[in-house]
């Protein structure tokens, strides 16, 4: 057997990556596919960002300046859909592709060909969805939550494209998740037990299970929409015996686990970066694992807190209020563990650490506004206001997005063999940090004062908060273009990186040279205790 493996080894070295475009089209290499995912998600991030800036430009002053309400609705809808399904989720899948095989000591992902397919259907899905913006009648304009009957009876004719695009995205996510689960469960290096796995691997394992459980429900919801629109069924039509409220139940049964899909891998990333720069072991590894598992379980029984105002019995409101508040317990465990990891550590503040600390602080603020929203009686006041917008942007932008940026800076030397420019990285951090707070903090106030979300015009009393918010949005948007410059400059002229790029970094990936070889571990590595995170 060992001879066979040896022969494979030589074979790999003789071939290496193909040249030119074919390398990217036909690749089955986890690093190539990870790179594709990351660049794709960055492109989508910029597209979604441009839509956000159209929104903020329109809201800079009261009155209609740049766009018509109908087009404004398409901007809010597509901004949400592109950022959720096109930027955040593929970025995490890209990181999973790059990191999981290296972190568990495997040569590649378990199902490399399916890996290629699950990436390459994404550009088609988003091509299809974005093309609807240029069609007669316009693109999706019913909000990213596409509530029926807005998305069925009153939808633009292009909604069918949207439905098929969502089907494709779902198929991509499901295939990606199956691949990740198969890799983690079967390809760990000998000696790496489940409770010795790096936190990023743990969080992705749980996220992948969430994905395969809820993406089919999303597919079911859009299929029912398709039937209602084209085949005369009445799943969501009250006049035919259906119920539009049922759409909301089905959507949020998918939607709530979905929001944890976008944050659990972030928890994993931060659990790598904070110990590395605090030069301590991760505090409470076991409780971290159980906290993630509890959050994942609770995510299935809280969905109706998104719909307190549609009318539900008191018992239902109480159940969903208390179960939602319960999530604060495991999340609090994680936050306190990160703080305890930093406690009395010999900390340094390189760019990834800055983003990770900003994550802990700002994500916690987003969590607190979530707790406020969980209180049913006050939710009647906050529902569908800018307070909700501020809440979920605080958990998604300085939450999920900051963790992705932190991960890019942290593992950039491992991926490319080059160090990024520390000064430019810090400038990028401070611009982003100031930009994100200037953008979203005032939205708490305009929301509490009653400004509804998804409107192109607003009463005069909200003018100041909106102007501040728009200024912040442009600062934040431009600082992400600066991020692109930092990355390209570092790729071209970064200083060479060592194998263990950070003094305190732990894990199998840091035992490899930088840049990591095209095939990581052709022989399973030995898992030494000092490389274990917990």
């Amino acid at each position, binding site marked *: 057997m060992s001879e066979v493996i040896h022969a494979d080894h030589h074979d790999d070295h003789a071939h290496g990556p193909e040249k030119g475009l074919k390398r990217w089209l036909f690749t089955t290499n986890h690093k190539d596919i990870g790179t594709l995912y990351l660049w794709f998600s960055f492109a989508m991030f910029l597209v979604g960002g441009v839509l956000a800036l159209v929104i903020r430009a329109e809201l800079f002053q009261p009155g209609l300046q740049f766009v018509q309400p109908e087009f404004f609705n398409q901007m809010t809808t597509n901004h949400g859909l592109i950022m959720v399904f096109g930027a955040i989720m593929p970025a995490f899948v890209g990181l999973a592709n790059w990191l999981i095989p290296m972190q568990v000591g495997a040569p590649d992902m378990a199902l490399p060909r399916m890996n290629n397919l699950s990436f390459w259907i994404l550009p088609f899905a988003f091509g299809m969805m974005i093309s609807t913006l240029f069609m007669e009648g316009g693109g999706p304009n019913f909000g990213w939550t596409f509530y029926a009957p807005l998305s069925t009876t009153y939808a633009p004719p292009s909604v069918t494209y949207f439905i098929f695009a969502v089907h494709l995205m779902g198929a991509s996510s499901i295939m990606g998740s199956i691949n990740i689960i198969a890799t983690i469960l079967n390809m760990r290096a000998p000696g790496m037990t489940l409770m010795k796995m790096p936190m990023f691997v743990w969080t992705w394992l749980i996220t992948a299970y969430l994905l395969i459980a809820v993406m*089919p*429900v999303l597919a*079911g919801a859009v299929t*029912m929409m398709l039937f209602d629109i084209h085949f005369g069924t009445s799943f969501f039509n009250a006049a035919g015996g259906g*119920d539009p409220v049922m759409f909301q139940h089905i959507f949020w049964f998918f939607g709530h686990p979905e929001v944890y899909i976008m944050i659990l891998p972030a928890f994993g990333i931060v659990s790598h970066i904070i110990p590395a720069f605090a030069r301590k072991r991760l505090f409470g590894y076991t409780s971290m694992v159980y906290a993630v598992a509890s959050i994942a379980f609770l995510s299935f029984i809280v969905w109706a807190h998104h719909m307190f105002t549609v009318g539900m019995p008191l018992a239902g409101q109480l159940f969903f209020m208390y179960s939602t508040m319960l999530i604060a317990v495991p999340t609090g465990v994680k936050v306190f563990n990160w703080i305890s990891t930093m406690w009395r550590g010999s900390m340094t503040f390189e760019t990834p650490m800055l983003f990770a600390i900003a994550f802990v602080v700002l994500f916690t603020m987003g969590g607190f506004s979530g707790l406020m929203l969980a209180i049913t009686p006050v939710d009647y006041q906050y529902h569908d206001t800018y307070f909700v917008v501020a809440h979920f942007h605080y958990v998604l932008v300085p939450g999920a997005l900051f963790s992705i940026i932190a991960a890019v800076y942290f593992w950039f030397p491992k991926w490319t063999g080059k160090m990024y420019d520390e000064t430019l990285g810090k400038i990028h951090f401070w611009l982003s940090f100031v930009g994100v707070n200037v953008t979203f903090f005032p939205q708490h106030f305009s929301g509490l004062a009653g400004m509804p979300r998804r409107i192109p015009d607003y009463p005069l009393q909200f003018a100041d908060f909106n102007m501040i918010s728009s200024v912040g949005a442009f600062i934040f948007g431009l600082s992400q273009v600066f991020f692109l410059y930092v990355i390209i400059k570092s790729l071209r002229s970064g200083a060479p990186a060592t194998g263990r790029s950070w003094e305190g970094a732990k894990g199998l990936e840091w035992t490899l040279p930088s840049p990591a070889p095209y095939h990581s571990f052709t022989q399973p590595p030995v898992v030494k205790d000092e490389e274990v995170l917990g």
Partner: protein
Amino acid sequence: MTEQSQQAGIKKTVRKTSLIVLGMCGFAFALVPLYDLFCEVTGLNGKTGGPYVFDEASTEPDRSRLVKVNFLTNTNEGMPWKFWSGKGAVRVHPGEAKTVSFFVKNTTNKTMVAQAIPSLVPFSATDFFHKTECFCF
């Protein structure tokens, strides 16, 4: 772990996870009847309880109270039929039986099939109303 046993493990994982995916697809569609069942049990959405036989002899109407019941009739958009109730509203004593007729007229000269859906608001009233006959034509 040898190469073969690893490949066998991967196959097994893929089979199991694919089953979860299929099961959840089924669950998504099973939510539709489950939702109906849930509404029937709780009276949400104006769904009244199951079959009920009215027995005039054993039911004593409460003559001290009078309840007004309004009947609203709507057709789906694009539905050419006319649909109306004989009386727009009735006043009844609780426990009393009254007959109200509903009419439909097919205004086209084609044979058509339609479905009538009864619903009751407010939802808290669903415990006090019973469907004694099928609401069909």
